[in-house]
């Protein structure tokens, strides 16, 4: 076992790096850049070290004992206020099979994004400060087990993102940044409301026997902790749990983004600098689905079970609507943004299946989409750096001019349309197998298979318009992939191929936790019963 | 004709009115102080007159004596004030001393 607080280290390492960068003079830009890359590389190494010490058989989810690398201490403690009781907030970190893949994904994507940030040339110091702050926020979301802490990290990530889009973005960056910020803030408000509601509904028993209100997610999942007339307690006759679930769900759905809350995504993607698009698509979108699996499912298992059909329906809408909308896009980045909408639909469909296959598929799809879309955005970034154009119709015949670049793009595109042998296939197949295995959403799963046809349609059409055909005169100066870009692409390609050929390690990693999630929600009847016996 | 209470009161009233008139109309602060003395003395007359004609014993006389003492003290303090006003403003004309307005 690891004897030092690895989770805190991995979370706050970027903050330490940020402190150091603060003291570096502005003109040392080369040092700032390479220092950031080193920080993210150490973080990645830590994540791999964490994985190598991770015990695959422990489940986590709602049992603190089976979480790993847990760090817990009292963070905020206020004794005052008679009507509030004591306020006790824990600093509680821990990982299970749901968060480890996400941590891996985040560290990989951040590392590659930091390499991709090499081309930033406008107020470099500020950029990398924000970048590292964002990094901490992202990792924090995936390791926090206290709702309050989770929320803080959730918000922490919002602010640097706003500046990264708003300062280093494209021509309409202010609009996009404000839209992103306000939209996600709306979601955060909903989450905050539910969080407070939950706080006043559930009491944790401390070691000395006193009962206090709690933000601890694992205590919130324990049905016996609910108070008699807590606002979100199932015992409360004015049952607000459905509304709370929907509120929380919308809060997370905005991040996914789920139709009809998705329109911030294309704007943010189009305007954000390449590295930020990569992080946005690769990591931030996963937080929505991660939040649902981590918080909504186990805390509201009773409601979740009733609403699975709706989750699946919105998943299917995302898949088909996103694909069709992507087909009509003229802007390369926007097209990929909409393809993200479509691909995140698979995650929702898999979650709604609520069986081992479906949820494994969903989590795997989160990981795969993270790597594949990251690669797609990097690719668009590469061509934008050279041609300063994102209009699909403006290209053509690049296959002749940039064969290696074309090769990488082809791999990424085919991974995105679920070609067997590449990672996208496994997760999509699992999602469909899972979805089809669930009686109530079977039809939706079948309809969603249309998505794989439409996906092939728009991806191949784009491939043709950009890379095939004749090379326009003006593009015959474009150079092929350089060394730095090789370093970004090759790890991603290797991951995509490896998980396509041999997904077993990743699936084993999450297997226990997936079982636990399914178990928690499936047994929501017992959940209610155990409350009834209070 | 015997001198009765009424006569005393008429005299004191005249004295009071003259004092009041002096206080309101005189410009010189010293004269105003003198007006005040007149009023105090008219009050003394009243006290003594009521004491003589009423059934009050010697209380009236006693109060009159107090008033005289008071008037002396008052005159001393007031003159000191006037002296200070003159020091500061080089005038004892009460019309010109309107600092209170602000």
């Amino acid at each position, binding site marked *: 076992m690891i004897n030092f607080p690895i989770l805190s280290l991995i979370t706050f390492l970027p903050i330490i790096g940020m402190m150091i960068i603060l003291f570096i003079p502005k003109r040392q830009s080369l040092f700032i850049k390479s220092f950031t890359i080193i920080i993210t590389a150490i973080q990645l190494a830590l994540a791999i070290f964490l994985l190598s010490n991770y015990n695959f058989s422990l489940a986590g989810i709602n049992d603190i004992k089976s979480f790993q690398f847990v760090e817990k201490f009292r963070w905020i403690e206020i004794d005052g206020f008679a009507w509030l009781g004591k306020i006790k907030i824990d600093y509680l970190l821990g990982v299970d099979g749901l968060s480890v893949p996400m941590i891996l994904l985040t560290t990989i994507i951040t590392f590659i994004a930091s390499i991709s940030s090499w081309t930033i040339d406008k107020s470099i110091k500020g950029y990398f400060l924000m970048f590292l702050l964002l990094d901490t926020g992202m990792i924090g979301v995936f390791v926090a087990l206290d709702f309050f802490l989770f929320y803080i990290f959730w918000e922490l990530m919002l602010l640097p993102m706003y500046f990264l889009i708003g300062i280093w973005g494209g021509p309409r960056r202010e609009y996009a940044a404000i839209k992103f910020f306000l*939209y996600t803030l709306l979601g955060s408000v909903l989450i905050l409301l539910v969080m407070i509601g939950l706080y006043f509904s559930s009491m944790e028993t401390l070691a000395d026997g006193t009962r206090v209100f709690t933000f601890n997610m694992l205590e919130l999942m324990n049905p016996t902790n609910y108070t008699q007339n807590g606002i979100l307690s199932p015992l409360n006759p004015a049952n607000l749990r459905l509304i709370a679930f929907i509120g929380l769900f919308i809060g997370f759905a905005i991040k996914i983004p789920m139709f009809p809350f998705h329109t911030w995504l294309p704007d943010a993607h189009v305007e954000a600098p390449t590295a930020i698009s990569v992080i946005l698509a690769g990591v931030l979108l996963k937080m929505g689905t991660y939040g649902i699996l981590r918080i909504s499912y186990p805390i509201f298992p009773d409601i979740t079970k009733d609403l699975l059909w709706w989750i699946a329906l919105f998943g299917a809408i995302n898949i088909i609507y996103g694909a069709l*909308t992507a*087909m009509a896009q003229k802007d390369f980045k926007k097209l990929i943004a909409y393809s993200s909408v479509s691909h995140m639909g698979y995650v929702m469909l898999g979650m709604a299946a609520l069986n081992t296959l479906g949820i494994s598929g969903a989590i795997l799809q989160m990981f795969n989409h993270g790597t594949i879309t990251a690669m797609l955005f990097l690719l668009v970034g590469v061509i934008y750096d050279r041609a300063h154009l994102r209009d699909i119709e403006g290209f053509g015949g690049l296959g002749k001019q940039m064969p290696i670049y074309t090769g990488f793009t082809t791999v990424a595109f085919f991974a995105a349309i679920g070609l067997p042998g590449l990672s996208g296939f496994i997760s999509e197949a699992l999602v469909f197998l899972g979805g089809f295995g669930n009686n109530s959403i079977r039809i939706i799963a079948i309809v969603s298979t249309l998505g*794989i046809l439409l996906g092939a349609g728009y991806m191949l059409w784009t491939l043709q318009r950009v890379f095939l055909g004749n090379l326009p005169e003006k593009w015959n100066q474009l150079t092929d992939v350089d060394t730095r870009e090789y370093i970004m692409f090759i790890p991603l390609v290797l991951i995509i191929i490896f998980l396509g050929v041999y997904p077993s390690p990743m699936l084993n990693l999450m297997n226990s936790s997936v079982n636990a999630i399914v178990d928690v929600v499936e047994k929501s009847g017992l959940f209610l019963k155990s409350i009834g016996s209070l | 004709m015997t001198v009765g209470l009424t006569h005393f009161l008429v005299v004191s009233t005249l004295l009071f009115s003259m004092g009041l008139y002096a206080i309101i109309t005189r410009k010189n602060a010293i004269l105003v102080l003198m007006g005040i003395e007149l009023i105090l003395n008219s009050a003394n007359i009243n006290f003594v007159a009521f004491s003589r004609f009423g059934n009050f014993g010697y209380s009236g006389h006693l109060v009159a004596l107090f008033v005289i003492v008071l008037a002396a003290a008052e005159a001393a303090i007031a003159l000191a004030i006037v002296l200070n006003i003159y020091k500061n403003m080089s005038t004892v004309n009460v019309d010109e001393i309107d600092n209170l*307005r602000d």
Partner: protein
Amino acid sequence: MYESTLINLSLFILLLPLLGFVVTLLLGKKVKSVFIFENLIIILTFFSSVYLLYSKLANFRTTKISSELEWFGFNNFITGTKLSINLGFMIDNITAIMLFVVALISMLVHLYSIEYMKGDERYNRYFAYLGIFTFSMNGIVLTNNILMMYIFWELVGLSSYLLIGFWFEKKTAADAGKKAFIVNRIGDIGMFAGILILFLTYQTFSFDKIFSSISSGVLPFNSDFWLTVTGILLFCGAIGKSAQFPLHVWLPDAMEGPTPVSALIHAATMVAAGVYLVVRIFGLLTADAMLFIGVIGMISAFIPATIALTQNDIKKVLAYSTVSQLGYMIMALGVGAYQFAFFHLVTHAFFKAALFLGSGSVIHAMHHEQDIRKMGGLRNKMPLTYWTFVISSLAISGIPLTSGFLSKDGIIASSMAFANLTGHYLFPIFSLVVALLTAFYMFRLIILTFHGEPRDIHKFEHAHESPFLMVMPLVLLAGLSIFIWYTPNPLNSEQGWILSKWIEKPTVFTPERSRFDFMKSSSDEENNIKQSYLDAEVYKEAMHSAHYPAMILSELMAILGILFAFIVYQWKKINADSIADKIKPLYNFSLNKWYFDEIYNKTFVAFTIGLSKVLAWFDAKIIDGMVNGSAFLTKHFSFFIGNFDKYVIDGIVNFTAYFNGFIGLLVRRIQTGKVQSYLALVIFSLVILLFIFK
């Protein structure tokens, strides 16, 4: 010789071309001669598959060898069960033969391409693509489960996409590649849905396990109907891959790829994968599903045959004839002629590959001229190409002494037997009509290309016989189109080793009630439940009585077709153009391929694109409009609130202050600062008070 040796050997055969692909692709830019490596790999693959075929037939002729390993699995800790997704091989005789066919044609195409593709700027990459194709095709052939088949199914789709669009500078080629992939995906969705049903029902993908569950009575959703649906859905994959009606439109377009690719992928092997799939799932097809398959096959045999009559592109004619022949095979499976279908797959692979490579030879000689109206008279200039072309054409027309006769005649006879047994007479009628059409258009092609006078003198003069590496495959493949390799008796294939010994007879696992009558196991055979329906007396009898009529009729048709072609094009007794003029609408209908492309473009494609545009508009204007609208409303509402605050709320506050100030202004007058006036005021007030309160 152990079974495990064969499994290892097949693993070797599978992975070798993958190695070739990776090495050739990665080194292609730097090492100019890396294509030699790929060719050596494929030759090694070929000899391994020959060895595999030999050892399978010699040592394990009646056993089915299979082996599988877990790919990934899911433990369920709650129920304590484990769900495994497996990868595995299954080698029976069909596998071994198919593997041999694929490896042989792939090798010949590789060698042929060395000459044909010479000078291409992406020479090495071409060979790399051939490598990944061979790998994926071997995967389809070797697999023992439907998921793995689907995986390799998609991978051949990829290699087909890459190879069709190999000359991607041409828009038509890029379009054709995309079209092939997408049209195939339509079929694949059906296949995938079928796989979903199978997995849901049986929790496994393995053919054998599924079959044994079916025979023990486990059905999807417990109904025969859903078993039929499953069969049809799986068959959808074959509709796409084997270019069956209504998804046949991609194959003629796929001729944009290099001609050797057309020979390998779009004639001999990949398109036959659909047939191979149906062969593999034959055991779960109910009578209804078979009928559906038969009808699709019949339509797909007929429509392209009529289109091929009028096409002028040498490769397009061959492409339509491929669809038509694949339709034959599919129809054969539908009517229960399992062995003949696979047999025809094999023979067709050889003679169609020969035809395509022959056409490639012609195209090569004519400097990439594909229009037969500009050819003619090449017979003397390219004798080897000519004769191999003729032999293959005779084979496809089903003339005795050729392999095509054996398999095609068998199919026609089976369809007759089927008609006699079940009353579906359309099958034999259509198959005879198609036989007539096939013979006609093939000889039209030969006559226009090789006979008569050259119509483009300039190109004709430069034409020459192709080099050895291109001719050798032609000769070899044409040689394989002779009967002698399959049976000693040129008129009866059933006596040959390929049917009686090599190709296993099918076993049907569907419930008795959902089979054709003739496929039901008769009661007196209960002790011999394993016996195939092909050996049942009733079927044998029907075949026997259909044998001679079928042979005579089909020969009649073939000879009529050839004769007619000679009359019209060689001897010019009838003017082709005047016939075309007389039946102008029909002619145009055929020339324009029954307007399938136009209809699809106007309906499905237009609908999808239109819908996508509408949705994009909806997204940008309505959904995003609502977001922006709410932002706009909020902004203006806040502006309003701001003004309200500024003028009303703050106004009240300011007014209070102002009012007080005003009062103060009024009252300040009496504040003179003069002691005397204060005193006067006090006294005056006192007097007034006195009067008030007196």
